[in-house]
């Protein structure tokens, strides 16, 4: 009997204390959570500054460890501001803003080389922001050589040496073999056919600018075509997509007629500008093919989606068609719709093939040797990697690694 009040009291205390304890815990947790959202985020740490490599001194890379509230915690970070100053005491100006989850940024805004810069990374959320400690100084230094392209430089030197060797070798008068290119052999036949039919020849030098090497290669071929056309007393129509290409084409065709001894036969209205709009150009050239019905169509240069529209329209008019392009995606279309196609590098070999100039033929030999070197490297690389030997592959990275160290 004497124990009963104690037991009652203990039960009463327990029954009250437990809900109270739970209530206190809930309130405390809620408070802790709300306070995590109410306060500014925790600042970033380990801010590291590095001069961006292989550049002209215009960039600094800033990296940091994410704010604890971004990589976990409250997870309410909006993003980071990278602020810069020339003094550790400020004032700091925002030069870059990056979204949450970013731990690196590149500052490329009006940096002078050999000036000390200080940075702080400011983490932001809806309630405020927290700056990191000031990091620095760092300088954006000018690098006089792009080490990232060392391998390219070595390959370029090897290739140029090979080309020069064979060019000067050819200069000595050694006869060089060049394989038959059916497309170029058919040029004379195509011009002859046009002459017999009394129809013109259509030459489209692609739809790219003169800065495109394929366009220059096309202009080189046009030179030979213009000469042959002049010799046969035939007309050549050259519609142009680019006005600069047009001026070059006019000059080249005029020279071709002059070289054939028939400058008066040249009509400058046959080499003209159409438009720099892709499909408007196609419509115009299609119109020429359908109305003028040229005996031969030559599509040589850089082409895009319009290649098949041109080639199929030409095929429907019954013309002999010779195409040549280095645009890999367009080659199958030309092969399907044209009689002859110069594939890729054949376009660049055409000038040497047509002129048979020893110096030009020498460069082709150099190209072939470089190709043999590359094929050899690829084959050895494949075989060695199949056997798990990585040293051959690493050999190509070695010069770069040595210089980096």
């Amino acid at each position, binding site marked *: 009997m004497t124990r009963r009040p104690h037991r009652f009291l203990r039960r009463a205390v327990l029954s009250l204390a437990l809900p109270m304890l739970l209530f206190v815990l809930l309130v405390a947790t809620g408070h802790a959570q709300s306070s995590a959202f109410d306060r500014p985020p925790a600042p970033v740490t380990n801010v590291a500054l590095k001069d961006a490599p292989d550049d002209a001194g215009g960039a600094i890379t800033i990296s940091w460890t994410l704010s604890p509230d971004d990589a976990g915690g409250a997870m309410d970070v909006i993003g980071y501001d990278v602020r810069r100053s020339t003094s550790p005491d400020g004032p700091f100006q925002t030069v870059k803003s990056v979204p949450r989850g970013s731990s690196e940024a590149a500052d490329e805004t009006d940096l002078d080389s050999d000036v000390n810069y200080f940075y702080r990374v400011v983490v932001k959320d809806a309630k405020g922001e927290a700056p990191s400690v000031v990091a620095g100084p760092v300088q954006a230094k000018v690098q006089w050589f792009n080490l990232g392209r060392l391998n390219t430089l070595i390959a370029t030197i090897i290739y140029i040496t090979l080309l020069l060797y064979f060019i000067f070798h050819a200069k000595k008068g050694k006869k060089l073999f060049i394989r038959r290119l059916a497309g170029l052999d058919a040029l004379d036949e195509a011009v002859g056919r046009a002459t017999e039919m009394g129809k013109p020849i259509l030459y489209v030098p692609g739809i790219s600018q003169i800065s495109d090497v394929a366009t220059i290669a096309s202009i080189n071929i046009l030179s030979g075509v213009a000469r042959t056309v002049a010799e046969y007393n035939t007309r050549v129509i050259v519609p142009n997509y680019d006005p600069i290409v047009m001026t070059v084409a006019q000059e080249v065709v005029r020279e071709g007629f002059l070289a054939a001894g028939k400058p008066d036969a040249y009509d400058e209205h046959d080499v003209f500008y159409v438009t720099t709009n892709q499909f408007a150009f196609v419509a115009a050239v299609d119109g020429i093919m359908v109305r003028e019905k040229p005996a031969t169509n030559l599509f040589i240069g850089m082409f895009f989606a319009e290649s098949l529209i041109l080639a199929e329209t030409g095929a429907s008019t019954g013309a002999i068609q010779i195409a040549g392009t*280095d645009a890999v995606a367009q080659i199958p279309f030309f092969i399907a719709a044209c009689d002859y196609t110069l594939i890729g590098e054949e376009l660049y070999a055409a000038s040497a093939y047509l002129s048979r*100039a020893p110096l030009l033929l020498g460069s082709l030999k150099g190209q072939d040797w470089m190709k043999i070197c590359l094929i050899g490297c690829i084959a050895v690389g494949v075989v060695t990697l199949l056997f798990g030997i990585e040293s051959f592959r690493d050999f190509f990275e070695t010069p770069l690694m040595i210089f980096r160290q």
Partner: protein
Amino acid sequence: MMRRQVPLLICFVAGIVMLSQNFIPPLTWVYQQALEWARIISAIALFIGLISLVRVHTMKLKRKAANYRYSYVTLFALCYMIIAGFLTKYGLFVKLHAGCDTGSAWEWIVTALEKALNFQEIFLNVQIPIQATMFSLLAFYIASAAFRAFKARTFEATLLLIAAMIVMLGRVPLGQMIPGVKEITVWILDVPNTAAKRGIMIGVGLGMASTSLKIMLGIERTYLGMKD
């Protein structure tokens, strides 16, 4: 002599500088500058192109050449778009509207002219649909070209036909239900197709570099309208 030597010298120096800027970062500004110049020259060259276009078509009209009536259409469209562009750009119709009484005949005329000469409207409702029409022809031409290319006359053409059939089947849901077709399609595209493409690209890269060197050294000079 000067006509030949000066362009070749400029070409050689420019080529060396442009090659060097690939490896010497402080020289990259030269490349950026060259791009700026190219833009300016292109803008000026457009006038040369325009002159060429007008000359060719006026000549056709003068000579009453075959199909000369199309030249009227070209020259009319050219002038129309130039006028529409300038009027839209300088907001002439906004000024004319400001001086009109609401509901007057003059306002009606100005509104009609504004609609007829709205550059953006003409571009969106005439030029874009015409371009889309031209592009759409590609679908039909692909079918006709494929019909010719896939005729199994030779061993190579038969191989092409079989590969094309498998790839086409592997690209549609029905074909993918056939066991193995999807895997063979991916293999054809990733292995022989990619290998062939890369082979062509290596040749193209070497050809480009070789042509560039020949131009720099003045060995290749036909682009200047000169023979060796």
